[in-house]
Structure formats: C-alpha cells, structure tokens
C-alpha cells in the first residue's frame, strides 16, 4: 500500500450521491439541532449533523422520567418532543448553514400523511438529506407499526419518495424478527440509504418503589450494551441490499466505528456516547483516523471490503 496515502487517509464518503468529508455523523435525537453541542464540538469537523426528529406540528413528548440508566446503556422515552417543522426550518437550519457540514433531517410522523407533510415542507429547505424515522419505539401510534411491519414500511417510503426532493435515508427498527426483509422492502420502494439501528424496546423497574422507572413504562435502549445486536444487523443488511448503510448503536470509540464499517457500513453515527463525553463525535473521528493509519487503510471503502470470511 502507498505510504503517503496511509499517512493521510481519505476519510470522505459518498452517501447516496452526497459527499461527506468523513463518515462520522450524529445520531438523531442525541445531538439536538447541533446548536447544543456547538460549544463542545467544531461542527465543521463532522461528516454530517443528523438533527432530532421533526414532525408536522409541535409535539409535547412523554411524561418524565424520560431516562433510566441500565448496565452499559440507557433507556429513553422522550417521545419525539419537537417544535414542529416550521419552527425547525426558521430556527435551526440557518444556524447549521453557518457550518461546512452536511445537514440530515430526521422526519417523524404518526401517519403517512404526516410523514409526507414534513417531507414536502422540507423540500424547500436547504438541507442535504432526509432520514425517515419509521422506528421510534416511544410513539404508540405510528412509529412502532411502520418500522416493524414490512408492508407499512414499504408504503410510507413509497409515498414520501413521491414528495421529497432530497435523497431519502430510512431508519430501521431493530425490534423485528428479520431486519433484512424490511431493508429489502424499503430499498425496493426507492430508499436511497438505510440507517440503523434505532433503539431496542426495553424497560427498567424500580424495585424499591415497585414501579416502572420511565413515565412511559417502556423506552428505547441505546449505548454500548446494544452494540453486538447493532453490528449483527448491520452485517446482515449490508449483505442484503445495495444501498449504503449508516451504522449506529453503542459507538464509543474509533475502533467501534471501524467495526461497523468492517461489517459493511458506509457511515456511522454517534449517539449515547455524546452524553458520556460531549466531544465523543470528534474523538471517534480521530480514533478512526488513527485506526486507518495503523492498519494501512487509505480510504473508508477499503475498510468496508477488508472483512475476512
């Protein structure tokens, strides 16, 4: 391999026709609209900022407590609280536009019409990609049914594709028997990329007070605890579809990111790790870069193809 290349590996990737300066993104819902971490991270260094879920109208979200810590992970039941797509477009996009990074907007809805409504509004916005969240376990109506039902998942992708202007990434739920089936279905309807995994549905109980810890009873499990499940699913899906995959679930280090890329992912997202360390995204970036140097990888694509067996 070329020594020069290894000294300065090329981290850029092509995600469904959009060029990102590196594969490191933020996981939706864990990074606000970017602003909140702007003091801790130079947003210019990130491949893309994936913002929190946006719906057509403002959503109040779930009652508290919305978080419970578990062994090597956390449960959240935020319930997609957000001020609605109009507030998002007027406040958050102008802020993010000041940075040289890609903007990916996570789209939430409780019905196909609502998903389409958000995508239609965002068609006018100066953003790079949509991420269709059909997998939030904290929304009773909608979310869970779309993401865990192959037909519904295909249908919502089909309809949103009709109205969206930007490339469409579809975020899959891990709470299914066969994730490759859903992946193939959304690919067939025109999904340009797939991101995965969303959180695993879980629960925590307060033995002393004899009640569920979360106000919403159940919530989504994230963090390093779920990494083995996430890696397995990314590995399976990358062998089932042709569209690029953005992998996430418990990424804390550059080596974790490398594992997802070895499993076949084109990009990766950092979620819960931000809470443990607000500089996690750039730490993962630097860790991945140093991994590439040590292993003699000159591009991200080389890692994707390096897995033995």
């Amino acid at each position, binding site marked *: 391999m070329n020594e020069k290349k290894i000294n300065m590996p090329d981290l850029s990737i092509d995600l469904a026709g959009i060029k990102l300066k590196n594969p490191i993104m933020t996981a939706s819902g864990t990074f606000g609209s970017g602003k909140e971490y702007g003091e*801790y*991270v130079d947003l210019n260094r990130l491949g893309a900022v994936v913002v929190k879920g946006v719906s057509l109208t403002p959503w109040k979200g779930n009652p508290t407590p919305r978080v*419970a810590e578990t062994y090597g992970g956390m449960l959240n039941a935020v319930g997609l609280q957000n001020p609605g797509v109009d507030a998002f477009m007027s406040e958050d996009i102008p802020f993010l536009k000041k940075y040289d990074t890609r903007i990916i907007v996570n789209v939430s809805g409780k019905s196909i019409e609502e998903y389409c409504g958000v995508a239609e509004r965002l068609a006018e916005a100066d953003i790079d990609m949509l991420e269709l969240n059909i997998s939030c376990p904290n929304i009773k109506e909608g979310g869970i049914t779309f993401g865990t039902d192959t037909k519904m998942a295909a249908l919502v992708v089909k309809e949103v594709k009709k109205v969206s202007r930007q490339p469409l990434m579809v975020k899959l739920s891990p709470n299914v028997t066969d994730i490759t089936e859903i992946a193939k279905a959304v690919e067939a309807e025109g999904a340009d990329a797939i991101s995965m995994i969303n959180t695993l549905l879980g629960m925590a109980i307060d033995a002393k007070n004899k009640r569920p810890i979360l106000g919403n009873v159940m919530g989504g499990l994230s963090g390093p605890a779920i990494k083995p499940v996430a890696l397995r699913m990314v590995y399976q899906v990358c062998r089932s579809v042709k569209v690029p995959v953005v992998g996430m679930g418990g990424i804390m280090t550059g080596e974790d990111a490398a594992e997802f890329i070895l499993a076949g992912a084109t990009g990766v997202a950092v979620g819960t790790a*931000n809470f443990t360390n607000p500089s996690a995204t750039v730490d993962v970036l630097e860790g991945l870069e140093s991994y590439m140097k040590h292993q003699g990888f000159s591009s991200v694509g080389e890692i994707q193809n390096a897995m033995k067996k």
Partner: protein
Amino acid sequence: MKTMKAAKVKKHGEIGENCWSIWLEASEIVDEVNPGQFIHVKLNNGEKLLPRPLSICETDTSSNTLRLVYAVVGKGTEALSQVKTGETLRILGPLGNGFDINQSASKSIIVGGGMGIPPLLELSKNIPGKKEIYLGYSSTPFLLEEFEKQNADIYVSTDDGCFGYKGTVIDLMRYNNAQGDSLYSCGPKPMLKALSGWAEKNKIPAQVSLEERMACGVGACLVCTCKVKKENENDWKHQRVCADGPVFRSQEVVWDE
C-alpha cells in the same frame, strides 16, 4: 472548545449523616460559576455511562477549587463516595442557568430542603442586603457552620425535631412570618410546590431550582424536562431543566406532578 475536564480531588469526606463533601480542582470552571449552576460528574465505573448532575455548593477562586455536597442514594453516588483524595474525576460545567439575583432587593428569603441546600451556600454569599435563610433537614443538619458565617438570619427545621423547629421548613416560615422581596429556593418538589403557593399568596417573586434525571446536561437530549406554562396561553410546554433551568420562576412551573 469546551470539553470534559479532569478534576483532581483535593478533599473528600463525610460531613454528616449520609452527607458527603468533595472539593475539586477545576481552574477554568471556577471563575465562570453562577450560584445555582451544576456540574456533570462522570464516574470511573464501566457499568454506568451517564454523568451525575451535582450542584455547585461553593467555589474558592483563590485555590481554584469548587465544592459539591451530596448524599449517597444509588450506585452512582455510592461509587462517587469511594473516590479518594488525589484521584481525578471527569467533570463538565458549569451547566445550566443559576439564580437571577435581584441586586436591589432589600431583604431576600432563601429556603433550602435536604440536598437542595448545597447550592444555596454559594447563592447566600452572592446575595446583597438582608437575608433570612430557612434550612429544612430530615434530621441532623449539615453545612450549618458555613451558613452561619453568612451575614444572615438562619432558621432551621428538622422533620424529627432533632434540631431547631420540628416540622417542615414551610411550617417554620409561616411560624416565623418570613419577610422579603425576593425568594430563592431549592429542595424536593413537594416543598417547592408548597413554597410556590406561599410565595404567590404573599406576592413575593420566587425562583425555584428543580431536579430531573438527566443524560446530556447540555440541552440536546430532552430527557430532563419539566412542565412550564406558556405565556399568554392556557397551555404548557416541556422545558429542559438542564439548559432552560435548573432555576425557574415558581409562577411559571406547572406543579401538577
């Protein structure tokens, strides 16, 4: 860029019944602190990922140190209590908005309950003018010596009557006919709720510092919300205790929970 910082433990020990005091060296942080702000403390424990929010109890700019006072209530604070002098902790802060000090008040009322008392120490140091400080404990008081050094009238209540007035701190305020033109408070939610009623009745603008379970501490994750009334509307919205608070005007908080 701001970042998590390694803070050396300068002094650490139990200062009362299940009440621990830790002094941390945190040079860049100390100068920025507003009373009522908190820091996020990351534990050196693989099992628990999330930092723990703890109020800044006081700062000492001469030694670049800040103090936290906490109770052991679960695994995180248990692990914290085992940290030894000379070891380092990773901390993030100062976070949140502190109290909005009314510089022109002629007399202020400061009310603390239990583990809500620590942040009121730094606050008391910073409030000008006359002060009545009400401190409610379940049993044995802590930090009392430090409060007594403030130029203020100190009133203490305990639930079991072990020390001072027997009853709640609100009972004591009523009994004492508390007076002032600004009220600052931190403590358990039922206490803050009762206090909010008292302040409304007595037409004293009150600020309350709330607690909620947190993850990010910086306003990004939306897990730490509380209900706050919308202005000019008969409706409410969720606001973030970490970034919009932890201090709120008592009149804007929806106390239903």
